[in-house]
């Protein structure tokens, strides 16, 4: 899963990661940030694109560079790096929209066996009485 990923720059505290995705749309700077939540030891995994003109960072940008697998592998590599330093952390990850969450869920499902060798994976379903589609998918890793 982690064999093909972009080179990553990281802050010394291993909370912020930056890498450049390359493809038909050119070079896109991507940011990954782990933010501690109100519950100590729980972190949110945020991931988005940096606008080359405004510098604005958005997790809603859609930049189809034909490399989603490599990008997700790179994000996964930051997760391993982060948890190497924050071994007791639990991470929550969701997409900004259901379609994006579904993409992440597919990526995780494809490598679930490998991921489960190192992490405990949780998901969240809607309660009974409503449609049991998984929304917004929440994964807590440990």
């Amino acid at each position: 899963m982690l064999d093909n990923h972009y080179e990553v720059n990281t802050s010394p505290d291993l909370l912020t990661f930056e890498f450049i995705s390359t493809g038909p749309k050119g070079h896109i700077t991507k940011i990954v940030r782990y933010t501690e939540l109100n519950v100590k030891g729980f972190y949110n995994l945020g991931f988005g694109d940096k606008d080359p003109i405004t510098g604005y960072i958005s997790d809603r940008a859609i930049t189809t560079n034909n490399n989603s697998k490599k990008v997700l592998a790179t994000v996964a590599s930051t997760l391993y790096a982060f948890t190497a330093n924050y071994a007791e952390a639990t991470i929550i990850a969701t997409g900004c929209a259901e379609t994006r969450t579904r993409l992440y869920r597919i990526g995780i499902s494809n490598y679930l066996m490998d991921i489960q060798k190192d992490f405990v994976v949780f998901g969240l379903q809607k309660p009974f009485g409503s449609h049991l589609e998984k929304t917004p998918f929440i994964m807590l890793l440990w």
Partner: protein
Amino acid sequence: MNSKKTETEKKSFLSILKLIPALKGKYTDKPLFKDKADKANYILKTVGIPNLDAADKKVVTHKKRTPATAN
């Protein structure tokens, strides 16, 4: 439950990264992914924390607690 990676394997992940001290303060003026963090806090507040001790390296579906079943 800690990661199953050995110390050597953990260090190997760190060794492939490039440490950039400037990155620590590079985005401090930008509250990155605040709405995501707010959403995650809301989820923790309403759904609660899963029973991590009961997890046994398998996918566990944490169903949203109703008031009748909440601890």
